[in-house]
């Protein structure tokens, strides 16, 4: 992933210090810059920001209302694996984790269409790494500026409490990172479709629909009918939101949690291989239309 960066020559003058840093930690500094740039870009849109927060709170409001109502009125609610409080926590944390991971189309499609992708290819960095770094920057921004304030609001206005056990936090970090990588790589694969298909909006729409239903963002895996649950569990989206949320609130514990996290890791490896192969095929396929 880092093999190309050392090809960069040091420049004289004002930028010398930066390049000195790049010389010392060639790969890391470069990718760190990508992440910082994405973070700064996000800062530029203030109004978008407030609406984004309001949007997140709206969805939390909808689903906490839904579950409260179901647990208060439905007879079937008595014999399920979640308590009323557990289900409210699930709805809140699933949505917060979803917000922390929000990604757009990674900008790859626009680059393919405009031909800018060719410039990215001749630059001395790994394209996958650069896109990931950029995405991590945006994601960190979402964590601090969206997920955290929304969490604070929820702590004040809902009955949600944070888990006491540090193990839950460790599991969250692990499962969140793996879930994030899975989500990123699925998005990356979808974005690479732009090499073969000009109009990719339809694919995005389908992916979004599938994600809504099968990520656990709204419905936890446990609620799917017995017939389809094993299949749904295999869909990589279930690893994105369900696993981090369930291990954090303590719904999945011990061996069960470990099993799900191992499963996530398996998906990370599989998708990593898919990304590498698809990227290789895409490079061969690339035709730049004009200049």
């Amino acid at each position: 992933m880092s093999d190309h960066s050392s090809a960069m020559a040091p420049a004289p003058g004002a930028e010398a210090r930066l390049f000195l840093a790049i010389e010392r930690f060639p790969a890391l500094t470069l990718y760190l810059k990508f992440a910082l740039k994405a973070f700064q870009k996000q800062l530029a849109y203030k109004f978008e920001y407030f609406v984004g927060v309001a949007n997140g709170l709206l969805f939390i409001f909808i689903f906490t209302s839904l579950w409260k109502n179901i647990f208060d009125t439905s007879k079937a609610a008595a014999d399920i694996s979640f308590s009323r409080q557990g289900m409210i926590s699930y709805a809140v944390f699933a949505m917060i984790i979803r917000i922390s991971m929000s990604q757009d189309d990674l900008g790859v499609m626009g680059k393919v269409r405009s031909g800018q992708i060719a410039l990215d290819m001749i630059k001395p960095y790994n394209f996958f790494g650069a896109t990931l770094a950029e995405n991590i920057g945006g994601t960190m921004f979402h964590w601090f500026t969206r997920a955290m304030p929304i969490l604070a609001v929820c702590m004040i206005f809902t009955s949600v409490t944070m888990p006491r056990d540090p193990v839950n936090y460790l599991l969250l970090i692990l499962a969140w990172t793996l879930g994030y990588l899975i989500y990123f790589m699925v998005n990356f694969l979808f974005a690479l479709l732009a090499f073969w298909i000009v109009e990719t909006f339809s694919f995005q729409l389908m992916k979004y629909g599938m994600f809504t239903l099968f990520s656990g963002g709204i419905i936890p895996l446990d609620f799917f009918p017995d017939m389809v649950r094993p299949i749904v569990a295999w869909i990589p989206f279930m690893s994105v939101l369900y696993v981090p949320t369930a291990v954090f609130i303590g719904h999945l514990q011990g061996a069960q949690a470990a099993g799900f996290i191992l499963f996530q890791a398996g998906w990370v490896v599989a998708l990593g291989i898919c990304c590498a192969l698809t990227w290789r095929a895409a490079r061969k396929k690339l035709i730049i239309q004009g200049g």
Partner: protein
Amino acid sequence: MREEAGIYLAMIVASIRAKMEYKASFLFLFVALLVFYLAQVGVIVVVLTKFGDIAGWSLGEMAFLYGLMVFSQGITTILFGSLNDFESQIIAGDFDRLLVRPLSPLMQILASNFEISSIAHFFIGSTALYYGSVGAGVEWTWQKAAYLPVVMTGAVLIQGGIRLSVAAVCFWTIRNRSLVHIVVYSSKEMILYPITIYHWGMQLFLTLLLPLAFINFYPSHFFLARSGSNLLFHPFIQYLSPLVGVTLFAGAYALWRLGVSRYQSAGN
């Protein structure tokens, strides 16, 4: 008047033909929309299979509620779809060009981008309405059959009025993308469910300020012969959708006119 209608018709036909040029991507968008809405339905179906009902609404009744929303959304998207992207016309200065023509600027915008991919909405919407009325055992009388198109008109006017007001905001702020996102799209997630699941403050909000409850919640009481269950319910409220629609749309159109009159081009 007749001549103008002819021009708008020609514009509509041209925009449909432009879209049909790309038959494959049109078909694909249709399929994608089906998948998207089926996933939305999937969420509700999974919850209902697990728990039986939501706030006393059975699967059939929920389907009817959903059908009213999606079908009217389909008509709204066909007629008012281009308003969601009005921001880009203001930013690029394209709106100036519409003003110098001897035609209504609003009609030009609406006719120039006729969104026919929303036949996917009609497909999903009518299936949901059909399944809903069978599942919930709706007895269709001629009153109900006659009231359905009236309710649809009201629902379309409500949604069109909301889109028009949000677009009019552009005259003051130039940008409105995030507003479109939350007011036009996200807010609709609320009426996927009967509004009685929400805090009474939100029920009031959805009745008086952003009257989305008149799109499906209140009128469906009439078709499903449900007795009222929320605080604000008066039997008469199930007939108010058309009135709310006309009022809201008139207000939105007044706001739009005001915006046009004080519009100063962003320049380019």
